[in-house]
């Protein structure tokens, strides 16, 4: 087995990765997709660096089935690590092959801004002259030498322009919502009132040609050439629908209690891998229970997709994070050959994990099947987005520890309860995890949720502490029966696990009468973790006053991040305002410093919103968070000052950073609230009501 990046092992054909064009441009392909995280810019910079060309010369082509390399799902903060590594290696090979065309000893040649010079060349040449229009016809089976990072000129620079941004600031319609085709139909779906409603009857007679509508089981769709008319039709048809409620959503117990009551299996985690053996029973001197509710991805644009079925070929324009997964899911649901389905990625609004993009893609395909030949653009309503997206699961974390006489932790226990964080469509399984499949007459049931055992997977992501404790017991407690639909929300279990660990570390520091930074340092051996912790404390000028600190390394193997939060808590209203955030991070070799900062800060702000405001509300009859008033998120007037410092390590591998700050920020915030008020908030969100409840304990 070679040392090649996984994506290159899957797609060794160099021509799938890079092409030199006659106009001087270089087309670099990636199977990863732009979600707003800036990956296309990062890929552009990596390619430009390795080829020694100006970044503007590199055009990045992203995700289309059968065209770009298959790089599975754009998730888990893996794109720079995986696709970035593959593109770097592919470019290193392309460079070597091109230079070998003009020299017997290509290592003697120099490339600067795309111009090739050196001994043996009569005149300077270029990649364009050497290779334009000519395929490489080369299979990568072994790695070739890459550029020494000490020679980098592009990577790590302070600022690069985001390649997707200029179109957006000019109003160019780049989103899937903006697609327009001749003769296009606009489609809307009429959803049941809840998960547990089934359609009895609906009256479609009011739909007159050229408008279209169809019903299949409990799946109702309407289509019109006029988009607003499609929304009106959806409403009026919806008003005629009669539904039967088959059962109720369990909603009478606090989620934290529900999780304990419905635990199905427990897996002690050892060396990052859960083993199916009974857990030890431990008595602890200090313990505390933390929780978070269900959280929404809350895309600002409701999910959308387009599709067209022509001569048995289905073309789908989708904002899915996994175009191959959705392609095979469509094949299974529509009983089509996957080869007859082409999925083209088109950007949606930011998704922050597995939202309803896949559901909307399937909806669009069903509508296209009902209107053969016609292009169909399907959009969800805001209310459906809020009620039907797969939420980030509720979690409960029970922490326990013994402190030695010296005030060190000598025993540490961590029990984490949660529902499945894995709800992506998984083709080939007996069930199917997209909404339409549950509603069609000949559809599929949802897959039975099952615990995952990979290192750092969903529930137990970052359940292992970054700290060194002599005796540890970390247990994953799986709860299959979730009252609400769930899937992967940015950082998965790491958010609540790190929140609990970092809160508990402060509680222990207090018990040990030690300041929180010193207490953490005493239990840390990882020098990179120590460095970010010290850096953030320096950046903030200390962690005294109404400030708190949090630290983690995402998945215990990716980006290190430490955060200091400063709060002001209103003594009368008990409202928490975050006034300042300081972030220090180590993501290894920096590719795009500004892009990295954007991701770290965006993740931190999103975490503040989760922690301060958010909880999906529901009752026995359905979801009651149906818009931005019933599910408020953080606003401009509530945004703190944010300062970020990055420790660049050019000689080390780049580490995924898109999910690094959620956990540390949440811990830092809870610790700051304690510093300001002596109230320990353990249940999210940190609303005035929860502060008052915590104060009353």
């Amino acid at each position, binding site marked *: 087995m070679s040392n090649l990046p996984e994506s290159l092992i899957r797609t060794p054909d160099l021509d799938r990765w890079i092409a030199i064009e006659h106009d001087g441009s270089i087309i670099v392909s990636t199977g990863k997709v732009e*979600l*707003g*995280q*800036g990956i296309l810019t990062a890929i552009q910079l990596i390619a430009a660096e390795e080829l020694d060309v100006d970044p503007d010369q590199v055009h990045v082509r992203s995700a289309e089935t059968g065209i770009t390399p298959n790089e599975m799902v754009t998730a888990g903060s893996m794109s720079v690590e995986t696709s970035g590594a593959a593109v770097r290696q592919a470019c290193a090979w392309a460079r070597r092959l091109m230079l070998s065309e003009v020299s017997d000893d290509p290592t003697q040649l120099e490339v600067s801004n795309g111009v090739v010079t050196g001994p043996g060349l009569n005149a300077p040449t270029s990649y364009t002259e050497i290779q334009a229009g000519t395929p490489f016809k080369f299979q990568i089976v072994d790695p070739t030498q890459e550029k020494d990072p000490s020679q980098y000129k592009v990577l790590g620079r302070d*600022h690069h*322009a*985001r390649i*997707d*941004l*200029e179109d*957006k*600031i*000019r*109003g*160019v*319609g*780049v*989103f899937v*919502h*903006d697609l327009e085709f001749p003769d296009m139909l606009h489609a809307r779906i009429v959803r049941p009132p809840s998960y547990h409603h089934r359609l009895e009857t609906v009256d479609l007679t009011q739909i007159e040609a050229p408008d279209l509508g169809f019903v299949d089981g409990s799946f109702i769709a309407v289509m019109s050439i*006029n*988009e*607003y008319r499609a929304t009106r039709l959806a409403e009026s048809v919806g008003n005629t629908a009669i539904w039967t409620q088959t059962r109720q959503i369990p909603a009478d117990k606090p989620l934290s209690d529900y999780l304990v009551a419905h635990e199905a299996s427990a897996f002690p985690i050892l060396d990052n891998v859960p083993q199916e053996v009974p857990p030890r029973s431990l008595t602890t001197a200090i313990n505390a229970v933390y929780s978070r509710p269900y959280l929404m991805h*809350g*895309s*600002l*644009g*409701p999910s959308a997709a387009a599709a067209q079925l022509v001569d048995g070929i289905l073309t789908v324009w989708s904002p899915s994070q996994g175009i191959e997964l959705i392609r095979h899911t469509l094949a299974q649901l529509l009983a089509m050959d996957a080869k007859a389905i082409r999925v083209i990625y088109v*950007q*949606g*609004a*930011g998704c*922050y994990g597995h939202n309803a993009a896949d559901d909307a893609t399937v909806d669009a395909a069903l509508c296209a099947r009902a209107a053969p030949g016609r292009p169909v653009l399907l*959009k969800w*309503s*805001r209310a459906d987005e809020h009620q039907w997206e797969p939420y980030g699961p509720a979690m409960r974390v029970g922490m326990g520890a013994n402190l030695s006489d010296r005030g060190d932790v000598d025993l540490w226990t961590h029990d984490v309860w949660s529902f499945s964080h894995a709800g992506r469509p998984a083709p080939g399984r007996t069930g199917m995890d997209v909404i339409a499949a549950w509603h069609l007459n000949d559809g599929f049931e949802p897959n039975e949720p099952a615990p995952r055992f990979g290192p750092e997977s969903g529930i137990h992501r970052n359940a292992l502490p970054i700290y060194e404790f002599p005796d540890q017991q970390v247990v994953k407690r799986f709860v299959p029966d979730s009252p609400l639909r769930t899937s992967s929300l940015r950082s998965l279990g790491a958010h609540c696990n790190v929140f609990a660990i970092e809160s508990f570390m402060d509680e222990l520091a207090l018990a040990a009468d030690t300041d929180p930074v010193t207490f953490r340092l005493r239990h840390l051996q990882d020098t990179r973790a120590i460095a970010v912790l010290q850096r953030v404390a320096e950046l903030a000028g200390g962690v005294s006053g109404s400030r708190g600190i949090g630290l983690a390394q995402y998945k215990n193997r990716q980006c290190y991040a430490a955060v200091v939060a400063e709060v002001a808590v209103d003594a009368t209203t008990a409202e928490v305002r975050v006034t300042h955030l300081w972030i220090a991070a180590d993501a290894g070799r920096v590719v795009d410093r*500004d*892009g990295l900062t*954007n*991701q770290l*800060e*965006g*993740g*931190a*702000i*999103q975490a503040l*919103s989760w922690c301060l405001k958010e909880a999906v509300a529901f009752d026995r009859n359905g979801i009651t968070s149906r*818009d*931005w*008033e019933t599910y408020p*998120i*953080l*606003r*401009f*007037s509530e*945004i*703190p*000052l*944010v300062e970020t410092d990055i420790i660049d390590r050019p000689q080390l591998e780049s580490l995924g950073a898109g999910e690094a700050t959620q956990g540390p920020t949440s811990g830092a915030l809870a610790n700051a609230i304690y510093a300001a008020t002596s109230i320990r908030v353990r249940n999210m969100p940190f609303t005035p009501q929860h502060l008052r409840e915590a104060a009353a304990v």
Partner: protein
Amino acid sequence: MTKLQLNGETIAVEAIETTPLAYVLRNECGIKSVKLGCEAEQCGACTILADDRPVPSCTLALSDASERRLTTLEGLAKGDVLSAVQNALLTSNASQCGYCLSGIAVAAYALFQSNAHPTHNDIVNALDGHLCRCGAHPRVIRALEQLAK
């Protein structure tokens, strides 16, 4: 036919008068900067200027828009030259996914039209009706504060 004064031109559109302006702009006028987000005046993604004041276009009926001077993001640039606000947001990479960006840019443009040197509070108050889920707020604020100097 309803006449609209859009981005400095008078145009005629054919749509039912109760149609929300956002739909008309997007589907009849090719104005894709206007985004549908909530269709309830809660998120700001569809913000345009009506007589130089930022308003949501998702609930404004076509019939109520015909007498007003309408400007969208597309109308802020002079040809290829972006407005100062657009340029500030662009050069600061003040965005992530960008779905909320055009509404924010339009509202910020209106703010700077009325006040060339807005304070931090002026900026966040002007944008408080605009939701951003990516958490790009700090860099939007920084970009506009820099422009205000």
